[in-house]
């Protein structure tokens, strides 16, 4: 598989709610000498419907992505849960379908963003930013499904001016769970409050994550609480700290 050229699968959340973060990820890859293609017809991996039990609808949407990635090159996904959806659940979703093989050809080329930077690119980062203290929130999919929680930590550890403060119960779910945040809003609300409590107790200035769903959840809660802590996607964070023009 060629590594000098990649597809970028933005994800539906990033496309509409975190486009700057997605662009930062693409520019970072480009800066490392990778040619990045953003297929114009991509939309969504199907996860929202899949997790709500609507598999027929999820399948329809998932299959529409296949033809966006014809070349045998890596597909970079700036989200552990979307990467996980494709890598671990498309197998169930496409089981028995005529395009099962075609779907699997996509599955085997998917990398989560931080995973690609560390494992394939072996990226070397130089910190150009001011000293700062951050906390890292790793999504459940990145941790439990993809088992790549160490990648974001490795990337941050290369930044000499960044100190990582660890929150209590850092592996506990933030309560997003996709439609769970709407269907069981009060349980989700209680969970995100517990999460923001542990984060704020670190006194870090910012929480970084590889997952936009978690960021929408945690960041949204922090903002509602008028808390001093900011939140940011790892792609944006790395781009800002390692790019000369910032």
């Amino acid at each position, binding site marked *: 598989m060629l590594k000098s050229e990649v597809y970028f699968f933005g994800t539906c959340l990033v496309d509409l709610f975190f486009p700057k973060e997605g662009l930062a990820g693409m520019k970072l890859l480009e800066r490392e000498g990778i040619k990045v293609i953003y297929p114009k017809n991509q*939309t969504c991996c199907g996860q929202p419907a899949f997790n709500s*039990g609507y598999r027929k*609808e999820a399948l329809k949407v998932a*299959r529409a992505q296949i033809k966006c990635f014809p070349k045998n090159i890596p597909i970079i996904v700036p989200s552990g849960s979307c990467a996980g959806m494709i890598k671990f659940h498309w197998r169930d979703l496409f089981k028995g379908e005529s395009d099962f093989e075609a779907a699997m050809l996509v599955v085997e080329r998917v990398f989560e963003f931080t995973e690609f930077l560390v494992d394939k690119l072996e990226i070397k980062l130089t910190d150009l930013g001011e000293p700062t203290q951050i906390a890292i929130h790793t999504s459940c999919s990145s941790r439990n499904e993809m088992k790549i929680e160490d990648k974001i930590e490795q990337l941050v550890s290369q930044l000499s001016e960044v100190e990582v403060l660890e929150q209590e119960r850092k592996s*506990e*779910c933030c309560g997003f769970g996709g439609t769970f945040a709407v269907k069981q*809003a009060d349980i989700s609300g209680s969970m995100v409050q517990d999460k923001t409590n542990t984060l704020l107790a670190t006194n870090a200035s910012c929480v970084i994550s590889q997952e936009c769903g978690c960021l929408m959840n945690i960041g949204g809660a922090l*903002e509602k609480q008028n808390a001093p802590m900011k939140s940011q996607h790892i792609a944006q964070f790395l781009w800002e700290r390692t790019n000369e023009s910032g």
Partner: protein
Amino acid sequence: MSQVKSLENRVDEALGNEQLQTNFRSAMDYLIEKRSDQFPDKDDLNNLRNTSSSIRSNSLSKLPELLIMLEENLENNNIKVHWAETDIEANNTIYQILKEANAKKVVKGKSMVTEEIELNEFLDSKNIEILETDLGEFLVQLANEKPSHIVMPAIHKSRKEISKVFSEHFPEFPYTEDVDLITQQARKILRDRFREADAGISGVNFAVAETGTLCLVENEGNGRMCTTVPPLHIAVAGIEKVVENLSDVPPLLDILTKSATGQEITTYFNMISSPRKNDEKDGPMVMHVILLDNGRSKIHQNTEMQETLKCIRCGSCINHCPVYTQLGGHAYGTVYPGPIGITLEPQQKGISELGDLTSLCTMCGACAEVCPVQIPLPKLINRLRSETVEGDYMSQFIEGVGSQRKSIESIAWQIWKHIYSHPTLYSICSKAITKLSSFSPKKFGGWSNYRVMPKPSNTSLKELAKQAGFKNE
């Protein structure tokens, strides 16, 4: 409909109860740490999990033969075997045995399967006194409540609450909040009850087919009391509890105690292979075992869902579930709470009644990470979730497939599907959303109670990528 309302109410009640929130948070922290301390080496843990998982899968792949072997060897050991397809049948069988023995007072060890069949309520209705003897269950019974956790039944109660309940029922003892004193008082009371009892009832942790042996774990000693002192012992076991060989027991025992309570081993491991023999001086004269189905054989028929039956009832999934930590056990309204509960119970009782339980999950996967027998709980829960709103291949296995499908939700997903599977349509919609982003709603259901509403950006990533000169195919 009314089940949905009451789940909602129970959830609200749990979330509004600060004492409960505190109790459960500290209890789960404690149990998580204790378990983790028992598994310092990740490789050793994985090996043990692989072994345990394969032992349980082996049992399920040979279940009918093993049950027949178990029955034969139990009967050879003078332990009478009964098969019960339903909870009602199990209760009636137990009642008949007690009636024939003229048993009026029964003592019971901790057993989730007897909760499952609602044995206590049934025997109550037949005027047979049945007393819980595990300290936690005893206290919960005094308070007229149900256990809130499968391993630590009184975990929802504070010391003060316990002292109050105890002193109300036993005013002859001075009120105390000293744990040692309460324990000693309970010991006195329960020892009398063991001696007066006509029968003892227990569950079974492992039933060994090879030797016809029933294995039980405990720390307190009440289980041994119930299964040794009264003249009659009745054991109730789910049909999935059987293991093939005696040599299957050590690894399962090891991972069970470490996962459940973070102990190397429980104080007592009791292996019973016979009632009192002719030349023996104690032990029950008569022993019976009830092999309970209660939906298990149906679950067994489904290739994907039969992994549910590997469960050894350790409670690890419950302890690590962030949703359970918020709610406690009672909010679920079921016998088994947490991840195993929302997987097992809808399969047993049907989706019409319990399908909404599948919403009590964020799919975080913490449960699957710790399950000692590697049950892929999130995958099973997701499968059940899809059966609540669509799918008909499972209708031969579970009642109520598709019964939770609501038209508004279903229409919403159809619309979503149309937009997201047609790039041109999506393009139009995303342009509209980004252009009109300043009009995006400030509130949306419960989300906005806890967070600001996410605001769509005024350009999409697709636009930004194009502007920045990235190729688009």
